[in-house]
């Protein structure tokens, strides 16, 4: 399509203006407000015991949820790309459920199952208003990423290399480790990065099941919300800046992985 020069410039200004107004300016302002009063205040704000606890809880939850979802995701992608079984379409739809359902609903559903009087409410350890609940909620909302990244890669690669490996003497496990996994590694890596970003940023589902006990079940996003509601704006900005910083790091990782993923 060819467009006249004034139109072309107009469209560009519109698109860039849209991005700037909705994304760049607000995020830039967060950083600006954060560092407005110097780095010392920020440092103090993100090293309070509550902040350190929130930060480490967020990382712990992510460190549990992402590996589990990676293993599950690769197995699921293998089943979807290679398997021939009844109910494949159903499995495919179920995997997208966390995309479709609001995280708040996920949180409530977990309370119905694991909360007091719930279906699995009598476990020997506490789930709701405790770390296991947060982990479950985070796993739930980040299930689709690895599956969705890896399935098309597996389909694209095909199974001929695996067949070749088997004719050369490799068992299924050897073929998986030596041939399948290396050929999908960048797809897996991309899925992992997306999962990490989603896990760290999760708010809705975690908010419902965590109980928000400061220093115990408060994640970084919950801390931002609490500080904001307590009119501790500087503190909220500092914690937000930390979140945004992690997000930018993930973005960087994604940009580095993406071209490699396309190479294969």
């Amino acid at each position, binding site marked *: 399509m060819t467009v006249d020069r004034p139109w072309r410039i107009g469209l560009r200004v519109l698109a860039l203006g849209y991005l700037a107004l909705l994304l760049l300016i607000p995020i830039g302002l967060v950083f600006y407000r954060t560092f407005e009063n110097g780095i010392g205040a920020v440092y103090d704000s993100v090293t309070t015991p509550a902040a350190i606890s929130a930060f480490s809880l967020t990382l712990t939850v992510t460190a549990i949820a992402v590996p589990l979802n990676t293993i599950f995701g690769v197995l699921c992608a293998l089943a979807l790309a290679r398997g021939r079984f009844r109910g494949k379409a159903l499995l495919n739809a179920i995997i997208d459920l966390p995309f479709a359902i609001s995280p708040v609903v996920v949180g409530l559903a977990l309370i119905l199952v694991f909360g007091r009087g719930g279906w699995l409410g009598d476990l020997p350890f506490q789930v709701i208003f405790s770390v296991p609940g947060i982990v479950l909620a985070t796993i739930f909302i980040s299930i689709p990423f690895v599956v969705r990244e890896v399935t098309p890669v597996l389909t694209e690669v095909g199974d001929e290399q695996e067949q070749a490996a088997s004719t050369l*003497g490799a068992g299924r496990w050897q073929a998986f480790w030596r041939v399948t996994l290396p050929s999908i590694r960048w797809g897996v890596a991309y899925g992992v990065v997306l999962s990490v970003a989603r896990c760290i940023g999760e708010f809705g589902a975690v908010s419902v099941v965590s109980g928000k006990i400061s220093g115990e079940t408060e994640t970084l996003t919950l801390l931002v919300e609490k500080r904001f509601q307590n009119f501790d704006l500087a503190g909220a900005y500092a914690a937000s800046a930390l979140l945004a910083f992690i997000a930018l790091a993930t973005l960087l990782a994604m940009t580095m992985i993406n071209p490699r993923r396309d190479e294969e």
Partner: protein
Amino acid sequence: MIAVRDVTKSFGDFVALGGVSLEIPDGSLTALLGPSGSGKSTLLRIIAGLEQPDSGAIEIHGADATRVPPQRRGIGFVFQHYAAFKHMTVRENVAFGMRIRRQPKDRIRERVDELLEVVGLAGYHERYPNQLSGGQRQRMALARALAVEPKVLLLDEPFGALDAKVRAELREWLRRLHDKVHVTTVLVTHDQEEAMAISDRIAVMDHGSIEQVGGPRELYDRPANGFVMRFLGPVSKIGDSLVRPHDITILLEPEDGARDAVVSRVVHLGFEVRVELRVAGEEAISAQVTRNEADQLELVEGGVVWVRTTHTLAVPA
């Protein structure tokens, strides 16, 4: 010897193999020849263990291999689209089977060097498959299959994805390799010229069954039926008989048993001349003569001649 005993295989409603039996002698180079959908690739994949037959059995060197997984059949398999391990170098690709078998490193290095020499890829050790041409990739795939010293080498349309010139070169090269290595080889192809050029024996397949098995000469000279005759080379049909174009003799005078015909076109193809003829009440036929014969006959379009046929095959109308 590889023995295929009464093997059947269906994919849904499609019958890929309808009860096939075949014996492949040790040290031979056998071609499975047929049009697409004839079941030849399925048969090869069943011999390899990449597909399971619905019924029937596969024996490799006297032992029942029907339920043996591919990795324990002692086979080498070469795929039409190479199936190169893209994330590995040429050296790692060729070494793959030996590393799986935990052979000593020195031995692997030696053998890889030796094989890359044999397939003409010496010096390409550290390249990746995407840095090789199609022909080179397929030679690498052959080296990889030969590295594990298979009892049987199975090739599924190995030259099908290559251009005509490379295909012809690799064909010759494979034949010479086979004469040197003597590993029992089964080759799937839809190209009759390829099958005739390199194999000792050909099994012609159609619609999931074997139509005829024999040497190239035998199949060409004594085809069991019209399908085999048509598949192995051009034919003309006169009455209820099939005849090869070079078994049609063109005469300038009538003779007993000869039929009159009108020359409709003379095509000069270098040494060979194709003469298209019309015989009353028949489909158009074409005869093949040498340039000298054509010159002596002084054929012109529209001229009347007589044709006599030899080595015909009667087929049901």
